[in-house]
């Protein structure tokens, strides 16, 4: 029997989708050994309200730590608390996400515990004394199977890679106290600027419309925005060439030096398909490419392609998707 700890990532008091992914993956690990899933939820007073959602995805117990100095992400306080809980709770695996927050937190927690850690995990299982994980290396051109020999093992899941499963439990809520004084951290968030609107993030969206230089200009991205609107559940991403030119913010960059996304549907418009871009989207479930050059490398990885000018194809596709969604 092995109990698993899942970290319930939140921002501005809202659970992030990766929190549910962590709980879902933790549930699968715990079920394989007959253990329990405990979720760690840290935030400003009131965050305990989110415990129910964690129970819905399979948490048996939600450990809630509420404190005025924990509303914004407080790396030092959260890492100290997580390490302390993991140690005292005797968990076999601690599941985080390889999100910006997760990648900041994971190594700190592992270092405090003196245990092994792997990020960007696409599969995990417990096998005897080891936790075995799959982890893409060399921008996904090679898949490594690695063994973490320590107990506990700390892992960071690839965001978007875990299909959410509802597995309702009447989660027990337990209040826990911070370790030390959270206000004393040496790194403090002064300001958080949310993106332009409450739009979906590329990491959470089931559909990503990614644009490249083929969209010609920042204004050209209107075509991608319109298609995203037609889907309703889509976000807009971009290539590095586009972000370097300042057409889109770097937070939307997908690829080797940008973000890794795995949506259900990835529509690449006016993107050549350089290997560094593929690194960020090759694990998408369905890939569509629209490019005027029929030799563009993106067509090699795409499930469906249209050879054509984005200025002509995108408005037609946007209209057709609107029509198709209407008939739902």
């Amino acid at each position, binding site marked *: 029997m092995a109990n698993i700890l899942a970290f319930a990532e939140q921002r501005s008091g809202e659970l992030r989708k990766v929190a549910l992914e962590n709980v879902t993956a933790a549930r699968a690990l715990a079920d394989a050994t007959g253990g329990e899933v405990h979720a760690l939820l840290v935030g400003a007073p009131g965050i305990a309200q989110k415990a129910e959602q964690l129970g819905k995805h399979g948490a048996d117990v939600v450990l809630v730590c509420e404190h005025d100095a924990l509303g914004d992400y407080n790396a030092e306080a959260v890492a100290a608390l997580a390490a302390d809980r993991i140690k005292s709770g005797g968990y076999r695996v601690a599941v985080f996400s390889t999100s910006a927050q997760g990648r900041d937190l994971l190594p700190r927690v592992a270092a405090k515990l003196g245990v092994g850690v792997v990020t960007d995990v696409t599969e995990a299982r417990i096998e005897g004394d080891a936790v075995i994980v799959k982890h893409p290396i060399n921008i996904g051109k090679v898949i490594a199977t690695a063994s973490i020999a320590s107990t506990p093992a700390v892992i960071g899941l690839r965001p978007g890679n875990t299909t959410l499963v509802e597995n309702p439990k009447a989660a027990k809520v337990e209040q826990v106290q911070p370790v030390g004084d959270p206000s004393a951290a040496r790194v403090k*968030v002064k300001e958080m600027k949310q993106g332009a609107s409450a739009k979906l993030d590329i990491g959470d969206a089931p559909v990503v419309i990614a644009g490249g230089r083929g969209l010609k200009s920042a204004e050209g991205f209107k075509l991608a925005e319109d298609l995203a609107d037609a889907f309703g559940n889509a976000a807009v991403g971009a290539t590095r060439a586009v972000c370097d030119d300042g057409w889109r913010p770097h937070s939307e960059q997908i690829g080797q030096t940008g973000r890794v996304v795995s949506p259900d549907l990835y529509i690449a418009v006016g993107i050549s398909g350089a290997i560094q871009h593929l690194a960020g989207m090759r694990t998408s479930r369905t890939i569509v490419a629209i490019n005027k050059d029929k030799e563009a490398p993106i067509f090699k990885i795409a499930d469906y392609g*249209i050879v054509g000018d984005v200025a002509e194809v995108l408005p037609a596709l946007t209209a057709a998707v609107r029509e198709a969604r209407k008939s739902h």
Partner: protein
Amino acid sequence: MKIAVCVKRVPDMDARFRISADGTSLDEAGLKFDINEPDAWAVEAGLQLKEKAGQGEVVVLSLGPPAVQETIRKALSMGADRGIHLAADRVPFDGFSIARAIAAELKDGGYDLILFGKMSPDSSNGIVGAIVAELLDYACVTAVSGLEMADGGGTAKRELEGAQEFVEFTLPAVLTVDEGLNTARYPSLKGIMAAKKKPMESKPAQLGEPMVTIKSLEMPPDRPPGKIVGEGAAAVPELVRLLQTEAKVL
């Protein structure tokens, strides 16, 4: 200000990778190597901070086989002052081992700042910087895309998913550098000549026992061959039909 910058030698990702006979490592024959791009941004950040302060030292450290000395030289030719080579047969996959060796070396060095790139594309873990920070008990900010130093600390911008975070930190600190902070300079001919004379120390890396090891490597399964649905706007109805009936994503 005394600044250490940790750099890694990484293969060009355009290459076709081959798995070695041992099944747990990649065959390096024929690969081209260079400094990890985010690490070059970290070197640039270190140089700019020193230049702005008008004094200080930028020390470049790399862990690995003798070939990593080339990578250190590259940073020296950009303008860093001296190099430290932590010698190991190869760079372990286990980020904790790497961090332990780096922390042991930098522990008593009196560094105000230790800089890393956010991640390297080969092992793709992005954890070494923050582990070093913990082991040394330094403040730590990861994925820094903007930076302003002040007395005894600084303010950094971090890229989050769909948001930006501005954080204040105190020195000494470990920072890992993300895209957007700067553009790394190219070494000048003068820099390349000067780098040849700059000091580089080599000593064994104190790696310790790894807790994470690679059991096997494999090539990802090929995606099933896709199809060109058609040309121009005329192909849209067929694409929509396939997305509805075959891929079931619409």
